[in-house]
Structure formats: structure tokens, C-alpha cells
């Protein structure tokens, strides 16, 4: 611990250079609400902490061509206060708003929630459902990666050594589209998802679903897309038959563990229930 050093680079190039030259374990810090807990508990013993928050563009939200560019280290409280995000992506807003307390909200970020790589991370199923793309920077330059390709297992990501996320892109929402995120916890606040479900829907003028994305959290080693669930919804007006197919498709992709928060059977059942309920909320928000 006494050998720990700290850097707060003020450009992507500087950050990449520091990470490339780092001896030992380098940890990227955004809000630090996971990293500093792990540091104190001894679960991680970095040699250097690279604080990204002074890199231009990594804090704050921009509306670009009708879509959104969210700086990777933007505190979730800032996302929750953004009128454009609330209107266009209420599911992403409600999911990111569930991470921790008011105090944690003032620091925690989408990049941190994603790269901490917990299967239960609340913002991740919502971002996947919303087709969020992570802009990854590193020694090889810049690449755009769908969010569902970042986490590879508990605590593990596909980011190469020296890479980090600069920003997230959310596409311009189609007319009559919206999203929703629900999680189950055994209390009302301040807990970790037993199951989470994100759904994004687009409707036509008559209320028929023309596009859908369904993603689940805390039911497998990584967040999982439910393509069969999306297929079941497309072409429907969210009737009971479509919802039953969605429920079955959601249960079918689950590969959960039993732990103190819930058993395998409970998680599988709840995945179907939450997928249906989140779809109903997204449908209503989209104007259906």
C-alpha cells in the first residue's frame, strides 16, 4: 500500500502513456465508489491509481445529432438530472439512479459500474437494452464496442491492458420508442439486484412493436441479451401470448447461482416476471 502512486492525466494520450508505462497493477478510477472500497479491504492492491476525471469529455453529457454522448466518469446524479436523458432514455436513467445512496450517486459512473463487472450491476442491462456503445481508448487508438461485449465474467472485462472507456454513445431514439429497467431487491432501497431486467421498445403508429431489446442482470456470470424475448415482442401489441413467450425466453437464458440474495429457481422465475413488467412499462412510455 505504501508504494501506491496516483496520477490524474489531463488528456487521453497522457493517460494512455501512463498506463503503458505503469509497473505492476494499474487501476482506472472514475468515481471510486467500488475501487476505494476494494482498496481499503485489501481486495485490490494497485501500484498506481489513474484518475480519469480530468480528461476532457469524460465528465458530462452532450446531445449529438439527437443521440447522447455520456462521459464515462459522469456521476449518475448528473445523468438523473439531465432532462434530455429523462425524456429519451428513462430506463437508463432509472437504472443508473439505483446505484447506491445519494452520496454514492454523486460519484458513481456508468464506466465504473460496467468495468467493476458485477453480474448485478444495475446500469448495465439498461444500457445493453438501449444499444449503448462504449468508446474504448488505449494504445491501439479508439474503438467502439457494444456494451454487451465489455464484461466477460465476474470482475473481468474485454478491455486490453492500458485501455479504458472514454464515453458512451446512445443512439437517437426512434419515434415512439422508450425503455425501462426493473430490479428485484428484498427491501425498498440500498441493496444489490437479485435480478434486473432492461427492456427497450419501438412501436409503430398503431402500437405494434417494431423493435425490441431485452437484457437481464444477476442471472448469469455476465449480463445477458434475450434475443428470443425480443423476437416474441416484435409484431405484437404486448398481448398475453407475447408476454408469455417473453417470460419463457427470459427464463431460458438464465444461468444463475444460489446465494444469500436468492436461489437459482427464484432468480429464474423472477427474471421472467421482471422482463414482462419492464416491457409493460416501456410499452406505456413509448405511447402504447
Amino acid at each position: 500500500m505504501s508504494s501506491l502512486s496516483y496520477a490524474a492525466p489531463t488528456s487521453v494520450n497522457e493517460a494512455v502513456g501512463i498506463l503503458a508505462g505503469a509497473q505492476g497493477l494499474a487501476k482506472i478510477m472514475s468515481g471510486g465508489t467500488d475501487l476505494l472500497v476494494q482498496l481499503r479491504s485489501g481486495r485490490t492492491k494497485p501500484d498506481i491509481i489513474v484518475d480519469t476525471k480530468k480528461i476532457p469529455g469524460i465528465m458530462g453529457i452532450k446531445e449529438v445529432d439527437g443521440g447522447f454522448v455520456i462521459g464515462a466518469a459522469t456521476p449518475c446524479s448528473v445523468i438523473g438530472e439531465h432532462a434530455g436523458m429523462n425524456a429519451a432514455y428513462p430506463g437508463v436513467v432509472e437504472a443508473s439512479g439505483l446505484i447506491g445512496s445519494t452520496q454514492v450517486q454523486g460519484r458513481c459512473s456508468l464506466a465504473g459500474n460496467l468495468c467493476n463487472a458485477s453480474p448485478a450491476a444495475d446500469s448495465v442491462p439498461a444500457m445493453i437494452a438501449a444499444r449503448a456503445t462504449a468508446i474504448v481508448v488505449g494504445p491501439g487508438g479508439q474503438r467502439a464496442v457494444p456494451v454487451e461485449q465489455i464484461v466477460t465474467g465476474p470482475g473481468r472485462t474485454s478491455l486490453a491492458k492500458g485501455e479504458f472507456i472514454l464515453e458512451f454513445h446512445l443512439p437517437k431514439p426512434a419515434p415512439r420508442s422508450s425503455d425501462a429497467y426493473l430490479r428485484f431487491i428484498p427491501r425498498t432501497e440500498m441493496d444489490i439486484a437479485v435480478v434486473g431486467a432492461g427492456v427497450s421498445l419501438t412501436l409503430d403508429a398503431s402500437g405494434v412493436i417494431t423493435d425490441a431489446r431485452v437484457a437481464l442482470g444477476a442471472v448469469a456470470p455476465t449480463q445477458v441479451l434475450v434475443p428470443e424475448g425480443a423476437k416474441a415482442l416484435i409484431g405484437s401489441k404486448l398481448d398475453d401470448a407475447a408476454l408469455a413467450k417473453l417470460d419463457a425466453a427470459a427464463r431460458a437464458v438464465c444461468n444463475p447461482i444460489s446465494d444469500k440474495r436468492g436461489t437459482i429457481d427464484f432468480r429464474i422465475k423472477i427474471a421472467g416476471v421482471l422482463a414482462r413488467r419492464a416491457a409493460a412499462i416501456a410499452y406505456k412510455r413509448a405511447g402504447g
Partner: protein
Amino acid sequence: MSKIHVTTTINGEPAEFLTEPQMSLLDILRDEMHLTGSKEGCGSGDCGACSVIMDGRVVCSCLVLGVEAEGKDITTIEGIATGEDLHPVQRKFLEHAALQCGFCTPGLIVATKALLDRNPDPTETEARYWLAGNLCRCTGYDKIIRAVMDAAAEMRGA
């Protein structure tokens, strides 16, 4: 290990200190600045006893590195009163006896001030959710919420 020099603003006054990279802002406030009002309950961001306002947002100072205070504006419990005059939130906590052991109280008062600065007329539900990250093992929260709602009413001139 060379220490890092940090220049910041604490309770409206310019401040500077030397920190090691792993030291938290809470460590700095308590051990270097001798502002011991902010408490360490859990040290992992769960209890809120170390709450401070940093650039207008309430945060757990145990989950902020001291070095991150560079250029920031920080308000601790010591900066809430005006001289000898208690802030209305502090007065209402006393009037409603919204504390017993008092360990959580600085964090609750700081978090409540941050709430009322942002939302002068919160519903009870909003106040309870806002303060969900401030744990109290004595009061059962009811008196705290009564103090918060009463302080809000007084500050609105109701």
C-alpha cells in the same frame, strides 16, 4: 513515499495539506485538518457518517481520495453553522431530539442541508430516500425525518 501537495477550499477558507495517495479525504479532514466532526462509521461508503458536500454534491469523504480535493469546494459539518448561530437543520435536530448517541448526526445534517439546498420542499418520501445512505442505529429515523421536514418548512418561511 513523497507526499502530494493539495490546495483546496474547506468551509469557505483556502486550505492546503500534504497527502499520501491512499489517504481518504476523511483521513485528511480528521487527522490533518483536525476537523473531527465528520465520522468514520464503516469506511466503505455504506453509512454516511462521513458525508461532506463537495462542489455542491453530498459525498462520502471515506470514498474520496484526499488528493481529489485539489481545486474543490468542500463543506463539512463544521461549516454548516454561521458563527455561533446554528443552521436551522441543526436547531431542528436538537428541538426534535433527532439523535441519541450522535455519531451519525454530522453526516445526517450535512446530507439534509444538501437536500434542502436542492429541494426546499421535499415530500417525506423524497427525504427518506435522499437520506437512505445515512444509517442511524438509535433513533429509528422517525425523529430525524420530523426534524428534516420541520427544518424545511421553517427555511421556506412556512
